[in-house]
């Protein structure tokens, strides 16, 4: 009975208790000022690999446990982090590609985006944004 109660509690607790809002960032050299949600999603799922000016798109993800990743996945990719991982397992083990690299923190994402002209990432909206450009996503 105790086991059933524990399972019930696990099932009813919210999936991501500590949700944070996020902003999408690109390198300041990137001429884009706004992107539609599908372009961002296709970039992070590597269905799209180039910007409008033909430069390589370099998405950078956050670590799987980051609350900002959970929110980004839900709002931009329309899937949970676990579901996106299943998507990447399909790609990786059938030999069709590899997922974006994962950063350990907002600061690491900002550094990567600042240092790579084609990079795109997302960080908590409270993060200190040096050397990157926030882009609006519709």
């Amino acid at each position, binding site marked *: 009975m105790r086991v059933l109660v524990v399972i019930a509690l*696990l099932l009813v607790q919210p999936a991501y208790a500590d949700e944070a809002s996020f902003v999408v960032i690109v390198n300041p050299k990137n001429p884009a000022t706004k992107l539609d949600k599908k372009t961002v999603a296709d970039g992070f799922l590597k269905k799209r690999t180039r910007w409008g000016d033909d430069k390589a798109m370099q998405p950078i993800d956050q670590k799987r446990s980051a609350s900002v990743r959970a929110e980004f996945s839900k709002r931009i990719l329309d899937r949970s982090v676990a*579901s996106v*991982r299943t998507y990447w*397992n399909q790609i990786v*083990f*059938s030999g069709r590609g590899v997922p974006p690299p994962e950063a350990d*923190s907002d600061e*690491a994402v900002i550094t990567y985006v600042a240092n790579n002209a084609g990079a795109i990432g997302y960080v908590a909206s409270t993060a200190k944004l040096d050397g990157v450009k926030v882009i609006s996503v519709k």
Partner: protein
Amino acid sequence: MAGSGGVAAPILVVMRFCVSVLGVVALTGSARADDEVEPPPVEIHGFVSQGLLKSTDNNFLADSERGSFEFSEFGINFSRALTEQLRVGMQLFARDLGPVGNYSAKIDWAYLDYRYRDWLGFRAGRIKLPFGLYNEISDIDAAHPFALLPQSVYPTNNRDFLLAQTGVELYGFKRFEESGALEYRLYGGTIFLDTSATPMTGPFVLQRLSIPYVVGGRIAYETPLEGLRVAASVQRLRLETDFLDNRDPMMPGKMLSADIPATLTTFSAEYNHEDIWFAAEYSRWYTDVETDDPLFEQPQSVSVRGYAFAAYRVRPWLMPGAYYAVMYPQLDGRDKQSGKQHDAAGTVRLDINSNWILKLELHHMRGTAGLSTNLNPGETLDTLDNRWLLFVAKTTVFF
């Protein structure tokens, strides 16, 4: 007969190779500060699976009636981006599934991939076949909810025939603003088969089995409804076979030949949005037999297969699912129990952590078309039990 796609090498050799590559990767990997992200020079991913098959009656895939752990898979892959557009990769795979596999390591896929633009790319090498929605991932536990994908469309014991081809592929992806997106793939090549891994006994003993060509394609349309895509696949191949006819034990065996051109089609629909996952596929396989021997002459046969599945990720670590699958190997013979296989399955996928999953699955089977007389000696498909249960447990570690 070992084809060039199958490397008949002990797994020890493969593991030595993997360790060597891992060593090279470790040496070439650059140190990085905590706030720097450096994609690894070589991406390495792998998995190890161990399963259990237990059936109430009939042996399925292995000696399942007794209960069998001969249901193991190992895979490790390496890939590297040489330029922004050019990537190379390979996966080594070994399995043991009842009488087949026996841990003989094979090159599962190995390719060079040149992505000219998103709408046009090119692959050459040994490439997994994009047939239906899930053929490429049918044996990748981490990539779907089930321990056994619907066997009507993705028969595990046909893995060597249907999984990969050696040749070339053109592929692309094109989004049309608000109107959705198209993903398309066209391929052609041949399939190398290792018949030594497919034991065959009885009055006809397989001497040669080759597939000189396979061509096909798949087009998938991502609809404007988020998560919904539909797809159509077609595949044309030719099997060339030689059998030794041993029906008369008093006479030396007589060689028989039969060529089997086949056309396989599948229509698919999938809805995968947030944590909901539905899919349904309908498949028709057309085969002819071309032979001079009247014994094998038969009109074109049509095999019909299909399934529908649903799965829902209740929690990040818990995903129950269910499917109903049906298979008629020959549309004309579906009245007999040997002419059909109905499979109602329920599964639970538990993600114990981000690298370890456990699947528990129960199948209620009706019909015997998916069974093998090699695994059920002394019986015919019509004398085996018509209704039977199959329990599958499978655990996989992957990275």
